[in-house]
């Protein structure tokens, strides 16, 4: 099972991910059509790319009164079946991350579905801030970072 990781230190707010997602969703480049949103916090100079985290116990899924939210067992994605969605916005109120958006043309909620296992936002990220990775790889990466950190300390000590 893979998931999208976001490294806020690498994000440069180019918004390529937003355009890539919008294009995949609707065939145009309107940023409001994107399911990933990059929030830039000017005061602290931090940018937060945000998209659905595909929670293990997804409250949006449990609460949906139209049974329109399902889990794709192959990708692990929590998906909105737009044909079933009634546009009541209960999922938007349930999501504690603000990661569900509204499609004003079709009057349904919409969110990331991991592009069925090939996320367009990750493919077009220019800085490597977004990765589509497995838990094992992500942990391995963390171990390598930790290992380099330890090495750097040991280097200092041996000098």
């Amino acid at each position, binding site marked *: 099972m893979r998931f999208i990781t976001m490294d806020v230190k690498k994000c440069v707010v180019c918004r390529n991910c937003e355009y890539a997602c919008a294009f995949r969703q609707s065939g145009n480049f309107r940023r409001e059509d994107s399911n990933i949103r990059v929030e830039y916090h000017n005061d602290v100079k931090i940018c937060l790319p945000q998209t659905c985290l595909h929670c293990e116990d997804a409250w949006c899924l449990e609460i949906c009164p139209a049974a329109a939210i399902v889990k794709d067992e192959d990708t692990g994605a929590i998906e909105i079946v737009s044909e079933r969605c009634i546009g009541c916005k209960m999922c938007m109120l349930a999501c*504690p991350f603000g990661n569900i958006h509204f499609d004003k043309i079709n*009057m349904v909620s919409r969110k990331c579905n991991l592009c069925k296992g090939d996320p367009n936002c990750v493919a077009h990220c220019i800085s490597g801030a977004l990765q589509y990775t497995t838990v094992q790889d992500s942990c391995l990466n963390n171990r390598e970072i930790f290992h380099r950190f330890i090495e750097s300390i040991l280097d200092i000590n041996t000098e």
Partner: protein
Amino acid sequence: MKIVIIGNSAAGLSGLEAFRKQDQNSSVTVITCEETTPYSRVMLPYYLREKVSYKDMFIRDDHYYERLNAKCIKGKVVNLLVKERHVVLENGQIISYDKLLIATGSSPIRPPINGLEGEGIHHLWTLDDVRRLAPAFLRGKRVAVLGSGFVSLQGAWAALVKGLDVAVIEIMDRIMPRALDARGAELLALKIREKGADLRVGTFTKEVTRTGFGEYVLHFDDGSTLVVDLIIVGTGVRPNIDFLKNSDIVVQQGIVVNERMETSLPGIYAAGDVAMVPSFLDGRPVVHALWPTAIETGTVAGNCMASQGDVYLGSLNMNVTQMFDVTVASMGEFLDGADREVWVDERLAENQYLKIVLKEGVPIGAVAVGESELVATLGMLRPLIRQKIRINGTPRNLKAIMAQNISRHHKAFSG
């Protein structure tokens, strides 16, 4: 162990699913007086305005009970024999239980107005109601909607979309007294009137009479009258507890339960609209009669019937919908008060409204009327209410406050 669940809507289904996650062996029987597979009450008005088809309203498939290894019995429960641990159905059938979940929901109240009866009087609460109402929902027909809660207004909106002549009659001096504050109600009322409905607040219906053509005449307290073809009554609901009259289960506005959804009788649980559960904000027992609360309390009941491992943090009311081309949402305590601080986002356009209510720096509720994205803000605020997080700053840095607290969110799901 023999488990019996009465009711197959939000609370009953959540209870069954939560129970089965923990216990695959006990026998489970679900008793329902509905003829069909489970459907969603929330979707009824969407069906009326043809946003969804009839079959879309069903939220579980035909093999649902089979898959969950549960038996479904269609019938009406008329009595509960606590000592014998028996549930008695209308046809005389007796079903015994070791643990019982009462998820019988609620039914619409019909206000005591003379003449409010006959085939033209409708509710908007069950599948049967909309089956009866849909054929009467014809362009050019005149409908009066009594009450202005979420269900009533959804019905009124569906009628407008279908081309009916719509009047909404509210006895209070503003609409949605339980789900919006005064400013929010004012903004929505503007929209309702702009869309062409005849909205009358502060209007008391004294009597209803019939004309020779079968039309209904509403007589109001100011002496005026209104002639319509049908009336939708949406003036609140009451819990379905008639079958409990011979038991000494403790009932106030609903069946009183503790934070594990246990009633006053051992082995008997209640959840959903029928239960009076602790409120999240002040711990006082309340009946919110809301879909999310039914899901949450049903889940807690199911978990507690399987083991004792779940505790409900209390019901936090939340409401959201889109109607009359505007998004309306609220949660928690959203009314102003002497001990409360109020944040209104002044940067929004004039027809947009976002208000957050705080008590000693901790958010306790919010209202939003306007664009959809305001709902996402309310969603992000909800964990802060649930975890009683004090926030510092001003409404202007709400975005930063939300971002700071994002790592806390994962702990703040339901329950």
